[in-house]
Each structure stands twice: as structure tokens, then as C-alpha cells.
């Protein structure tokens, strides 16, 4: 089974602000996006070592009142980042298989 491990596009800058929100922006295009605190938490785990389930588990460890459907929210969020070219992902195809990176 493929396990997607998303990786944040290294060209994108994360600027955190005092209220725990952050701006993501691409210095080359000037395109900017606002991230809420949960989005920031997830962004920081998009390091190619965590799949969405790992990320939601980390979120449950760190935050209170994480809703039942958080996994679905997290997947949709990552998909929207991917759509905007902010995230790619690594595919592990089981032990011994090669690793591919898509984005």
C-alpha cells in the first residue's frame, strides 16, 4: 500500500505571527496564504517523515478537543496545499522499494 508522506515545498516561507496564525508565501511570485494555528501545526510536520495519520495523532497529543473528523480535515487541507503547489509528497512502496517524490 502507498503511504503518502507530504513534504512542504522548500521554496515557500512560513512567517509566524503573534496570534499563532502565519503567512505562507512564495518569495518568487509574491503569492501569499493565511494559515490558522492548526494549519501551522500541520505545516511544520510536512517534512516527508509523517503521513496524515501520524500528523493527526500528533495533533491529538498536543491539542484538546480535536474533533472526530480531524483526519478528513487534515487530508483536505494537505490536498489544497498540494493543489496550490505548496506541498509535494514522498511515496514509500513498502520495504525495499524505491522512493519517489511527486509535487
Amino acid at each position, binding site marked *: 500500500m502507498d503511504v503518502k508522506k507530504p513534504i512542504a515545498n*522548500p521554496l515557500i*516561507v512560513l512567517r509566524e505571527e503573534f*496570534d499563532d496564525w502565519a503567512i*505562507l508565501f512564495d518569495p518568487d511570485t*509574491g503569492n501569499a*496564504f493565511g494559515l490558522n494555528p492548526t494549519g501551522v501545526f500541520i*505545516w511544520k510536520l510536512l517534512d516527508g517523515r509523517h503521513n496524515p495519520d501520524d500528523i493527526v495523532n500528533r*495533533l491529538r497529543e498536543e491539542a484538546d478537543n*480535536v474533533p472526530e473528523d480531524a483526519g478528513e480535515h487534515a487530508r483536505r*487541507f494537505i490536498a489544497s496545499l498540494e493543489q496550490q503547489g505548496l506541498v509535494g509528497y514522498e511515496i514509500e512502496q513498502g520495504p525495499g522499494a524505491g522512493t519517489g517524490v511527486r509535487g
Partner: protein
Amino acid sequence: MTSGPRCHDAAREEPRAAGSSAPALRSLYFYLTQGCNLRCRHCWLAPQFQTAAKQYAALPPDLFRRILGEAKPLGLSGVKLTGGEPLLHPDIGALLEILQDEQLRFSMETNGVLCTPELARDLVRSGMHHVSVSLDGADAQTHEWVRGVEGCFEAALRGVRNLVAAGIRPQIIMSLMRRNAGQVEPLVRLAESLGASSVKFNLVQPTARGEKLRDSGEGLDVGEMIGLGRRIENDLARTAKIRLFYSHPVAFRPLGRIFGENGDCGVCGIRGVLGVLADGSYALCGIGEHVPELVFGQAGRDGLAEVWGGNPVLRQIREGMPRRLEGVCGECLMKGVCFGSCIAQNYYRSRSLWAPFWFCEEAEKAGLFPGSRKAATDARQERNRPMTDCQCAG
């Protein structure tokens, strides 16, 4: 966790006007009267002072109906009535009937002075969903110093009460200047006691009389405005029973207040809005009263579809905004939602559509523009930091 993860993109898909490459014309702002019953010191429109003896032009109801008829196929979903003073229009009843016939919801900006109980009920019955009333002081002396007409404070309070009794809670708008800056909190308490829904604090724009007010030293400087904004948004908002909005540009607003739940997203609506002046001119907005090149045509004579789809200035704005913004606006990470705050104001000052907004330019010069909102030159170094630098503890 209070809300799911969200990534808010500034550049959203826009609906298109039917059969056209132009965006939908969502809203028309009607500057209904050339005259006004007040003579405010900070007014950016500077209409003629109207009395019983001296009357000025107002948009004829037939033309109003015709414009709405032409605008609906282009995507019109709402209308704003403003002035001069919309309630000074001699046929305001006829305009309200037309809006009701056309089933168009509308908002209104008024000084409140002429808002009788009957008129308030008619406005609500005709589909008014939002109304703002200006109060520039918590007492008659201050308000009337700003507004230039004796007795207008009590009249405005009566207007607000009439609106509340008719079932709509107005927003109070206060324009900030040296003379009234100390009355922010009393004004909030007054608004609460009147039954208002919110208070919005506006910065005086350096246009027309607003420019004179600033030149005379009665305006606040940018540092004072930023400080006042922080006090209002961070301190006063916590104790107020109603919502408070401070109209500084998006770069000065916390992200949570822009994109969060109930946030004021700050997206400039200019791409879907057109102004109609009291003489039937189509213009970028009321600025057309002062800047002839921002008047795009004449209702009745020019088809609205041609004006909206074909006017070269409107096309230039659609093609160049926000990419061509200059100065601090060009560097600003919020330009995709803010569009330089107010093109009309920027053009008025510089005769360029792409000039930066005065407030942010002054803040930048004073070293007060927030660094996190600028695409700084060291961004390339920032992005080359290893990802582990960004990892959360735990």
C-alpha cells in the same frame, strides 16, 4: 482545537458577467444626491450644502430603474445607497419601491438626521439589510464641530433609535481625528446603549475636505492611528458588548481578524463594484466627483454592459491589480486581498492607479510597517532554513 486547518488563498475565482470576460458586476454604489444636509470637515466627497432654499441634483427614479435593469444581467446582487445624503433624495420613497419591485437587497450609509420612524420602517420593508449611521462624537459639541450643523447630534440619535425600533440595528461609524480621538470609549458605550450592532472606526482620507483637515493639523499622524487601532482591537474590543472594526489597511490587522471565523476578510470589492453619481455618471466610485478621468460614461446614453466590459480604465485595473502595485503596496504580502486599499484615493493623490496607499507609505517611512507582511529581500535566506527549524516542540 477550535477550527480545522485552513489555507486562505487571496486570489479567488471570480464569477463572470454573463457573456463577457469582465467579472460580475455584483454591486452598484449610488451616490444619490449632489447636496448634503451636513457640512462635515473631513468629507471626501465635499457635496454642496443643501437647504430648503438651495436644492441640488438627485438621481431621477426612472434612470435608477433603468440602471438596475441593465445591471441585473451583469450579475448585480446588491446595491448601496449613499450620498451626499440618501435620505435627502426628494423621491426616496419611489427609489425604495423600485428596489422592492426588483427584489434587490441594499445597504445604506446615512448621517441619520432625516430618518423618521416611517422612513425607517419603509427602509426595512424594502429590503435594507445593513445601515450605517455616522456619529463623530459622544456629545453634541464634538459631533457638531465635525459635522458643521447645530442640532444634528440629537437628530442623528433619534434616527438611530428609529432604525432600532423598526427592527434593524445600525452600525455606527466614527471618523477619527485629533478632536474626537479621546471619545472612542464613550462613543462605544453610547452605541451600545442605543442598540447599535457594531462600531466602525474610519481613518480620515486625505481627499477633498479630508485633505484640508489633515493639512490643518486636525488629523492624527500615522503612529497615533496605529496606536489607537491596537487599543481598540486588542483592549476595547474585549470589554465591548458589540463588535468593533478599525479600518486600517489589512497589513495592520491580525491574521485571525482577517481570515478567522467571523473575520473581516478585507478583500477589496473594487473588481465587482461600480459607482453611479447623482447626475447619472458611471464612475469608479464617488471620486468621479473630483477626478473626471475616473468617470466612465453616462447612464441612459451609454449601455452599462459596454461601460462595464469595455472601459479602458476598468480593464487596466482588472489586468494590473494587484501585480502592478508600486512602493510598499508592491512589496506587501496582503496585496492580493487588499489591492492597495483604495485605488480612488491612490489615484487622487498621485494620478497613478498603481501608487501605494498613503497610510502604509507613511507607516513604512516611519519604520512602523509590520515586517512580517512584506516580501523582504532576505526572504530567500528565510526559506533556505532547514525544515527542522520550524518544527513544533513535542
